């Protein structure tokens, strides 16, 4: 099976600080892959590089066989690579429906309405609040909206940046259920999370990041059982 996303020896530096020190990983078609790690491990930087928000200092990113690091962010969406930014990034002063419509910004086909119904079907809460301003939604609803908005672009690969950040546990559960449903519908997902336990339970494979490198990788079940992971991320004594 060919990899949908293939990252080789990726390095990113902010000024003199090397945030990524050469990482390799891949995401295959139809997979849900988790990228976990503590604060400052370089998870978000990885996603920023994947969505061309920062330029890599070295290494290559291949998406469907094509090197993407020279492409601008806005061109990636058209190729089916969608990012749900950290901190959700909903358009606070637009309504829920307008936010979702923005997700289909680059599309000109006639099936946008159908996709809108699909998102509303997936997240009935958004349907109830479709005319409300996005800024007035709760954090969990905003996260749902951000995911729904990215689905409007009909992504092949969805990059999720810490969807559980700042949410109440019950909302985290709901958001993760949605992520799972989206994955079952055939969207490949790269999930970046601090909540290691939930992310590993949901995903099939995982990578553990530590200060700019990938320290562990393997099937999620194995990582969940790994004593080092349990110690570092799940708060258990070794």
């Amino acid at each position, binding site marked *: 099976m060919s990899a949908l996303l293939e990252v080789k020896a990726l390095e990113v530096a902010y000024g003199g600080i090397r945030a990524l020190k050469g990482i390799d990983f891949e995401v295959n078609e139809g997979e849900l892959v988790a990228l976990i790690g503590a604060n400052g491990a370089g998870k978000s930087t990885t996603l920023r590089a994947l969505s061309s*928000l920062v330029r890599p200092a070295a290494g290559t990113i291949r998406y469907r066989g094509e090197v993407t690091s020279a492409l601008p962010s806005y061109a990636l969406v058209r190729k089916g690579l969608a990012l749900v930014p950290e901190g959700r*990034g909903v*358009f606070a002063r637009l309504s829920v429906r307008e936010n979702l419509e923005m997700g289909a910004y680059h599309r000109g086909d006639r099936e946008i309405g159908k996709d809108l119904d699909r998102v509303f079907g997936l997240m009935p809460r958004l349907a109830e609040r479709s005319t409300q*301003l996005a800024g007035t939604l709760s954090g969990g609803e905003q996260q749902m909206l951000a995911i729904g908005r990215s689905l409007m672009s009909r992504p092949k690969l969805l990059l999720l940046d810490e969807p559980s950040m700042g949410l109440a546990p019950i909302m985290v559960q709901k958001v993760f259920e949605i992520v799972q449903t989206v994955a079952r519908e055939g969207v490949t997902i790269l999930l970046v999370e601090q909540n290691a336990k939930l992310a590993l339970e949901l995903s099939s494979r995982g990578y553990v990041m530590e200060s700019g490198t990938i320290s562990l990788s393997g099937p999620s079940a194995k990582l969940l059982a790994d004593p080092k992971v349990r110690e570092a991320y799940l708060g258990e004594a070794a």
Partner: protein
Amino acid sequence: MLAALKKNPAAKWLGLALVVIALAVLPFAVEAGAGRSWVRIIDFALLYIMLALGLNIVVGFAGLLDLGYIAFYAVGAYMWALLASPHLSANFPAFAAMFPGGLHFPIWILIPMGALVAAIFGVLLGAPTLRLRGDYLAIVTLGFGEIIRIFLNNLNAPVNITNGPQGINKIDPFSIFGIPFNKPLSVFGFTVPSVALYYYLFLALTIVIIVITLRLEDSRIGRAWVAIREDEIAAKAMGINTRNVKLLAFAMGATFGGVAGGLFAGFQGFVSPESFTLMESIMVLAMVVLGGMGHIPGVVLGAVLLATLPEAIRYTVVPAQKMLFDRQIVDPESLRMLLFGLALILVMLYRPAGIWPSPVRKREFATAEKAGKLEPEQYPDRTEASEGARL
């Protein structure tokens, strides 16, 4: 009332007809009631509406704080002044040889050219500031405005292009179809004064600009501007080419400024750098903010109020003081700034979204008030995202 209008097309047309008649007779009514100088003030108010609508695209729609907007007005005005006055021919023999009759371009060329040249300057300002937001952008745009003004002040040596602080005079008055605008026009024995002619011209262009802005607001481009204002990273993630869309905002905004500047030059017959100070930029920004940022009727209202009220003060304060104290105690200019400051404070306290905000903004402020404060959950942390963008 609006709903009733929608149901009843006849009433809608009647209302429109009434507005048209009111706008048509306005200069005559004002002249009869308050004198010709007030018609002139209304002409200026129309110019300010154009300026405010242009700035509203940059500040209100795209959320890019621009403190040097008056520079585009200056560019438009000077371009018009140079192409429709004897200045260039008098200073450059080459021009005199090329145009033996002097440079006198018609309005049909000058207006689009003013728009184009200002748009180019808009892109020139926009390109180096693409990565800046908020305070940083404000400082750079402020500098840009001052640079343009200082250039105008000093470009009289070694070659005299702008004639420095003295400015350029003897600018051709408008003329359309051979009708000069600086003389009263007699139509069937009915005399239309020069200021009223200008009023109709400015009104027509203001309406064109209002229609363009209204159409832009709900267009794809308008939505892209709003998306950038709300969250730039998310806008990129939607597939918006944020660079081009931002440059377009600067260029569109500058276009309106350039057109208004050209009209100003032709109307005054004289331009000098003094008309394009930082204070003017701030006034236009205040019109946008006080009226209701991003809401076109609000911005128009803000421009009309801020352009006419200071004049009203000028005309009432001195006689009032003479009557009360037998002498003038406060000069109207300083009183103007005092009242202006007071008005700003009152509006920010009681109508924080502007005098006539868009329904959306009003709702937003109402919710924030109800919650008692701006909760982080309602306003997702955007500093984090913008900080990342700066890195």
